[in-house]
């Protein structure tokens, strides 16, 4: 991992079209502003990991779905 120190208002540029700026520092909460092409998804990491895990659980061969199939619209 590349570690760079930034102060309030300073930025990092990734590739040539992604920019991350420290927009505020309030106690231990740091807000980061991210400019990137809209096609590039950006997520809080813990949310992304949670979704990955949930998708793995939804793979049907680990669920007993017979009860669900009795439910009609």
């Amino acid at each position: 991992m590349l570690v760079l120190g930034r102060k309030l208002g300073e930025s990092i540029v990734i590739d040539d079209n992604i920019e991350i700026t420290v927009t505020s520092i309030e106690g231990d909460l740091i807000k980061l502003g991210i400019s990137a092409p809209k096609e590039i998804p950006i997520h809080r990491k813990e949310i992304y990991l949670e979704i990955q895990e949930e998708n793995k659980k939804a793979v049907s061969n680990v669920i007993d779905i017979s009860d669900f199939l009795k439910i009609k619209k």
Partner: protein
Amino acid sequence: MKIQTEQFGELELDDNRLLTFERGIPGFEDETTFVLLPADPSGDSPFFFLQSTEHAAISFFMADPFVFLPDYEVKLDDVLTDQLKLEDPADAIVLTTVTANQNIHDATANLKAPIVINNKQQLGKQIVLNNSNYRVKHPLFQQAARQV
């Protein structure tokens, strides 16, 4: 084309059933083509399987969330309508994964990250509703899709 499915064995399906998920879905980034199979072929069930065409074992159990949670809301923003080439919001199908451990009554739907499919263009994507308080594990059998 012939597809091996987890639930239904080998199926013969029209090519127009193929859905392309360009980036796969989180945790399954290499799975880029799927077919959507109703859990009940007669069409009476709100459940589906999103079946990978490349790996029979990769088949996601899905539900139509609006059948269970009528006030669930998913806004389709410009980025998404561009990426899925959605010309008419009515072409969009919104589904959520369903997970259950033991008891069907504990089943949960991932309202935070629904899967949106453009049936006409045969494209799909899992989106994350970043600015909502919907949960990744929302009880399926509760009346309201309350934001927590």
